[in-house]
């Protein structure tokens, strides 16, 4: 049986988003997964079929950690992998891949003087040059590092309320991408009412404990009896258990959001600033995301915001609360969402959109329920382009509409890819 190694040395959310690639390889052979040692307990729960390899890539270099990674390299040399999938454009994982023949490594390859990218990985980078127009979930991007990935619908269960209450994720790694606590308190109060007063679990790491306390100060007293503050109190398996079977999960773009999608918990996502639903939205059918859509977004996480995070303003409007109540009422009723797009949804402030996740042949695809999307045609065009590149047949006829944005062809169709030999890394 062939052996495959997947190296995913990034964070919690990235590990969950590697699922489709891992499931695809598991159908063809024995899957080995290399992650940072801190994530091994989580990986064990998420991917029980994979043999795990603990790397030490997070934190400062230490002798013990180096010895651990070296031991991993020794082990790899004896395993004779058919292919190695390096998911990270990173010097550290590229260095680890030097123990393999270069042709064995897929995705990001170590080369003299740098890292070369597969044609597909290069395309992903090209899409990130015009993020507002691009549309490919990171789960699908990594999945296509390997040929013929598993069907998108087989990755995560469709979102279904589980009966165990409301989860509230307190913040992402970047506070700019999270709802301010007073706004979050209003969102929680609205959701609590719409769901008929369920228990509320506050989720996050130890870092989020002050935010948890702050949130509770903003919540009405009648809710506090139902609040259970789990922030900083769960290890990985306990976190998975806490999220499992929730009725809904209120969250910014976080690792816990991806965990919720992995478990089929309905996600109510709030994306602003650099967070972009079309790249890192929840994977699977039936999740809802409120995405801010100012012309300056999505922005770079690392760049200072010259507008004082103005994209957060539409999320502080009362229209958002009405929109949340409508989505949750529909979710609670159990009515099918098939015709959701055709229905009338409460209006949203300018620069705010409500999306619901669905599926096409390529993978997860968000559908707009409320608000306006000035880039719909371009995104349809890009989706069609990606499907053609992957030889997928798409049934969405919207893709044939003529896009409005200039230079789309120059952006997507690279002269070198057409005129020089295909399949080359650079």
């Amino acid at each position, binding site marked *: 049986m062939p052996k495959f190694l997947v190296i995913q040395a990034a964070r919690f959310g990235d590990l969950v988003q590697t699922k489709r690639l891992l499931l695809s390889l598991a159908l063809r052979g024995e899957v080995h997964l290399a992650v940072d040692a801190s994530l091994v307990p989580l990986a064990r729960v998420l991917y029980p079929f994979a043999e795990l390899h603990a790397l030490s890539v997070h934190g400062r270099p230490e002798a013990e950690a180096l010895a651990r990674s070296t031991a991993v390299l020794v082990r790899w040399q004896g395993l004779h992998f058919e292919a190695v999938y390096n998911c990270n454009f990173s010097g550290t994982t590229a260095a680890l891949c030097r123990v393999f023949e270069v042709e064995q490594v897929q995705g990001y390859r170590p080369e003299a003087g740098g890292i070369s990218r597969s044609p597909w990985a290069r395309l992903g980078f090209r899409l990130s040059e015009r993020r507002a127009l691009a549309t490919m979930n990171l789960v699908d991007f990594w999945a296509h590092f390997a040929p013929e990935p598993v069907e998108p619908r087989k990755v995560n269960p469709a979102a279904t309320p589980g009966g165990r209450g409301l989860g509230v994720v307190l913040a992402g790694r970047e506070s700019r991408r999270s709802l301010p606590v007073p706004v979050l308190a209003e969102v929680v109060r609205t959701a609590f009412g719409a769901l008929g007063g369920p228990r509320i679990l506050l989720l996050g790491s130890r870092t989020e404990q002050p935010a948890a306390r702050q949130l509770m100060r903003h919540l009405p007293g009648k809710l506090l009896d139902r609040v259970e503050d789990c922030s900083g109190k769960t290890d990985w398996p306990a976190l998975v258990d806490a999220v499992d079977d929730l009725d809904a999960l209120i969250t910014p773009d976080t690792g816990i959001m991806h965990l919720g999608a992995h478990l089929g918990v309905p996600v109510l996502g709030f994306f602003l600033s650099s967070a972009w639903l079309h790249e890192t939205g929840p994977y699977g059918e039936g999740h809802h995301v409120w995405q801010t859509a100012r012309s300056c977004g999505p922005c770079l996480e690392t760049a200072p915001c010259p507008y004082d995070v103005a994209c957060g303003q539409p999320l502080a409007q009362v229209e958002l609360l009405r929109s949340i109540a409508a989505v949750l009422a529909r979710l609670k009723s159990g009515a099918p969402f098939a015709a959701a797009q055709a229905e009338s949804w409460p209006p949203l402030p300018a620069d705010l959109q409500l999306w619901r996740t669905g599926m096409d042949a390529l993978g997860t695809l968000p559908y707009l329920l409320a608000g306006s999307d000035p880039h719909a045609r371009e995104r349809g065009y890009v989706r069609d382009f990606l499907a053609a590149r992957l030889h997928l047949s798409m049934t969405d006829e919207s893709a044939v509409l003529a896009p409005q944005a200039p230079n789309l062809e120059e952006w997507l169709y690279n002269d070198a890819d057409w*005129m020089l030999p295909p399949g080359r890394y650079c």
Partner: protein
Amino acid sequence: MPAAPLRILVVLPMYGGSLPIGRYCASALSGLGHSVRVFEAPLLHPAFTGLRGLGLAPAQTAQLENSFLQVVSQAVWAQVQAQEPHLVLALAQAPIGRSLLQRLRRSGVRTAMWFVEDHEVFDYWKAYAPLYDVFAVIQKEPFLSMLSGIGQGNSLYLPLAAQPDFHKPLELTEQEKREYGADIGFLGAGYPNRRLAFRQLVGRDFKIWGSDWDGESLLAPHVQRGGARIDADESVKIYNATRVNLNLHSSLGTAELVSKGDFVNPRTFELACMGAFQLVDRRALMPELFAQDELATFGTLEEFYAGIEYFLAHPDERHAFAARARERVLRDHTYEQRMAALLDFVEQRLGPWPVELGSSGGMPSDVEAVLSPEIRRDMAAMLQGLGLGPNAGFDDVINALRARSGVLTETEAALLFLDEWRRQYGKK
């Protein structure tokens, strides 16, 4: 048919399957009497591989690749300036980028692409097709409508063909028959559908030629020369020496090994033109190109295997099919016919070819006045040597001479001298 010979620049790709077709096009256009120059992009391919061999950082290599393509593009433009062609004909993957196509359009040079690829596999036509004046393809609907939808109103269905002076029956030596011959043979790349379909032929007198058969352990004993690429000259010998040539159109998928696609591949026409017997899978566009009794076909794997057995046992039927197929190709499917159809289409859609006074189609009066009888006599032979038709004009001769490398005869040098002399005195 153009009234006068045209100057045509054929731009070849640097590598790949459309490269030999580009050469056949150039040869056919010359055969039609036009003045043809070929942009030899394959000459530049080693520069590309050399760049990659320098061991530079990937980011630098990527930048250099883009710069390299710009240089190639400039070289095409330089050739356009030198030849002043009536038409630039590009084959799929030819190194003509968007900016050069826009430049050619601004300059009034007509452009045509023969996209000899499957539009579903290569989607780049979406970006380039609207920039060509004419876009010829090997598939019909829905491709033609899709081209129209993106603004290419001058698309033409132009099926592939054969080159009779190259794809011809050969008398092989006994040694060649031993080397190339087999009951069953296949020449081509190891696409997934072929790998699976051919497994049942393991153990037979079966030779597989061509590349990309790595990792196919069952078929490995049948793969000749370790899967090395086979050049065009040898391919003619292989086809001629094989009793049953297999022609299974390629497919990336393995769900349907006989893919039932639309276009007919070049191998079909080439084998037919050689008078070599082939067993080919049926294609949607095949019935209008070949009659049922001209090609032995199959639609399923069962028919495929049964066909091999039947035709191995019935050599007379093999020969009859092969003879009828050859006759049909010579009558209807040569590259000269395709190129004539293309030029007619260009003229029909874009209007008559520009007439250049005192140029093509005759000798300017000042040239007529000074040519000696000896030079006139030598010119007839010279035209043939330059690949020009009998009606080539003085400018065509001069352009062809400028492009020729090596030592010239005294007549050729005298004509170049005359042209320079005329330029000096502002005759042009």
